[in-house]
């Protein structure tokens, strides 16, 4: 019997965790002599107070949806894919090659091509650690971490070599006009009033939403999802049922890598419109927190990604307008990760006890 009703598990615990993280953050801000209430107002205003702020929040959220989904699907097969960062970097390489070397007639086709390219490149980068895990038993955590470094080096190599644009900067040339994706500014332009002016959010956000729905259906409605979840819950039982561990490890990691790679259509094709060094900016790691907080459920990932999008954008505003240093923003984000991910039981245990005593009182 479950101790707590489902809503408490899904909504109450994350909310309390966020609240605790917020309180602790407030204390830290107070300690360095700033007003936490003002800081919060600034963050909310900066991230959600205008369509410009929303444009940034949703842009960041799009990145986190992809990497969060990537970590989630691997979690369902009980694998910890820490390589989202590297897979997204290599996905960016795929996007750059496809945008630069194929003469696309229209952005929609370019989006389709780049999505496939990003997915294939990301999946290929995840395939090697997955193979080593499935066949040689090399731990996926170790190999995917190492592959993040290799990915960064590979990108370096291309950006100062084959793909380098003329000039000083280690970056590709600007992608051709026909590959530029419609931004929210283009899409929500109603004559007089332009929404999302200057913000990087673009059509990729809707691709991310579609990915959420698709992954949800994959996990809970298809035979493949059934097999992945079976394997994730019990490898011995999966073997008994005739589910091949090798197949599941490979397939789950390929999907995971593909999703992480697809982040590149947002940041590389959608925003920068060229490939630069360190294009991913840690979104691969944020994806782990997003997946943990979202309980590996695609819709949970969506909500968690929005929260982290808010924290990113709000944090940037905070650094811009107050003397709170940029590093402290990272501390606040880290506190949220700590409370929602690592300290889950700290909130869960007392809450479970509370529900128990409530139930006993009722009897």
């Amino acid at each position, binding site marked *: 019997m479950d*101790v707590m009703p489902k809503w408490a598990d899904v909504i109450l615990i994350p909310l309390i965790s966020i609240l605790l993280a917020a309180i602790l953050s407030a204390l830290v801000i107070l300690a360095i002599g700033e007003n936490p209430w003002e800081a919060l107002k600034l963050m909310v205003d900066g991230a959600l107070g205008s369509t410009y702020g929303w444009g940034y929040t949703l842009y960041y959220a799009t990145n986190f949806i992809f990497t969060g989904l990537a970590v989630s699907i691997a979690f369902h097969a009980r694998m910890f894919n820490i390589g989202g960062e590297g897979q997204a970097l290599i996905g960016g390489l795929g996007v750059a090659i496809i945008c630069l070397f194929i003469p696309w007639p229209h952005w929609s086709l370019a989006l389709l091509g780049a999505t496939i390219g990003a997915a294939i490149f990301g999946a290929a980068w995840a395939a090697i650690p997955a193979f080593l895990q499935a066949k040689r038993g090399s731990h996926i955590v170790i190999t995917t971490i190492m592959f993040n470094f290799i990915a960064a080096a590979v990108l370096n190599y291309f950006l100062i070599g084959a793909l380098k644009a003329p000039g000083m900067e280690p970056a590709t040339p600007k992608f051709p006009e026909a590959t530029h994706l419609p931004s929210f500014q283009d899409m929500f332009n109603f004559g007089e009033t332009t929404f999302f002016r200057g913000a990087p959010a673009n059509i990729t956000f809707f691709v991310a939403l579609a990915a959420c729905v698709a992954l949800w259906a994959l996990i809970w*409605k*298809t035979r493949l999802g059934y097999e992945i*979840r079976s394997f994730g*819950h019990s490898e*011995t*039982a999966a*073997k008994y*049922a*005739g589910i091949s561990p090798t197949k599941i490890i490979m397939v789950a990691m390929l999907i995971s890598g593909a999703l992480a790679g697809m982040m590149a259509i947002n940041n590389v094709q959608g925003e920068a419109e060229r490939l630069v060094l360190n294009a991913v900016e840690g979104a691969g790691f944020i994806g782990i927190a997003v997946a943990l907080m979202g309980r590996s459920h695609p819709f949970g990932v969506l909500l968690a990604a929005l929260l982290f999008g808010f924290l990113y954008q709000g944090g940037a505003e905070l650094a811009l307008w107050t003397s709170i240093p940029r590093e402290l923003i990272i501390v606040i984000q880290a506190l949220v990760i700590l409370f929602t991910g690592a300290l889950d039981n700290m909130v869960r245990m007392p809450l479970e006890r509370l529900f128990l005593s409530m139930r006993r009182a009722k009897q």
Partner: protein
Amino acid sequence: MTDAAPAIELKGISKSFGPVQANKDISIRVMPGTIHGIIGENGAGKSTLMSILYGFYKADAGEIFISGQKTAIPDSQAAIAAGIGMVFQHFKLVENFTVLENVVLGAEDSGLLRPSLARARRELKSLAEEYELNVDPDALIEEVGVGMQQRVEILKALYRKADILILDEPTGVLTPAEADHLFRILENLKREGKTIILITHKLREIMEITDTVSVMRRGEMTATVKTSETSPPELAELMVGRKVLLRVDKAPAQIGRKILEVKDLNVTDDKGVHRVKGVSFDVHAGEILGIAGVAGNGQSELLEVLGGYEKGTGTILVNGEEIDLTGAKSDGQSRRARGISHVPEDRQREGLIMDFHAWENTAFGYHHDAEYQRSKLFMNNAAIYKDTEEKMARFDVRPPDPNLEAKSFSGGNQQKIVLAREIEQNPDLLLIGQPTRGVDIGAIEFIHQQIVALRDQGKAILLVSVELEEILSLSDRIAVMFDGKIMGERMPQETDEKELGLLMAGMSGEAA
């Protein structure tokens, strides 16, 4: 009886875990120098009660008296200090320590080990002579058999000056001969004035060795009686709360054609240990072949190879056709396609996904079946759900709720879910391992009836069990495995536990 204070007296012990009341107002008096049995089904609260006595759990209410003294037992250190020793079902030994080191561990005299070890060695010697507790003090735990490991556990308790010894399901891993040895030790201990509490679900042991027996059911102590004044049927009724059939009623087998033929099967596990050594046997339609043996003698590996998820070498024919034992296509799916169903030995680790809903478990292993598909890609969850409802009704699974997670069902009902899934596939051959392990008596009766009914439909059944009673009452033919080999085949009406026990201990078939 009234002159001496009881060695242990519990008064009004209650303990609940969340909504589950594991112990309800339990009172019990255990007299010194007796063997007191506590019997009850799984989940009746026996282990909880003993854990309270040993300081693992704190009772919500109630008092503990040791030799007439009210005693608080907040932790196991206090229990040891009060003279209580516990031998767990799963031994708590350090595998790569010697027997001597394990005995001393946690009870060293000082920071220096050598004097402790020397003292322990002397003490062990005298204990061994006194109680027939012979062990080799310098052997590594991982290299000695379970019988000796258990003796080490008892020695550990005695070394800590225990006067009261609690044994939790001590014979589960022993051969009949080893169990007899253990009982002799317990008799010796009793003679020396020690008090012994024996927790078990085996009626035979209770009748054989205890002086007094307490029966627990659903967290309550339903009766305490003198063993000499009761009988197995009466105890079973007290445990379950209704009359139960202890023996299976079955008609003579109608043996048909050969379904399964195993020839010279060899299995080597991942660690390179040769587990099954040249085993050959047949199973016919309408027949139950029981494989007896102490756990760990190759029966599990035999089932795993037949079930398709371990590799082996040799020949296996099903309905006259050879099945692939090593190739990439040799998996559980290929076996199911050949009409082999498999109720695995460990339902929690293999047969079920404990976190899955009951309905998801119904499709487990058969998730490729056409009736469960909506399209090439999507499964028909509604159809699986409906199928589960029907299966639950036919197999009397309680509660009949397909949305409950497997882990929320009792052991017996979990087993019924697996059984319903495997039997209703209408297989030619059913592999079934430990069908009633951790299953309450009421459900055992039902499960046995289902197995016999399947046999009477003309199916071949390969039964692996470590419960000799079960093997004897269900099988039409019995093969005994020891050390990866079949020691001999017997007909159940022409053999008894003693003969099978010798075979299980590795005495050759002819000598036995």
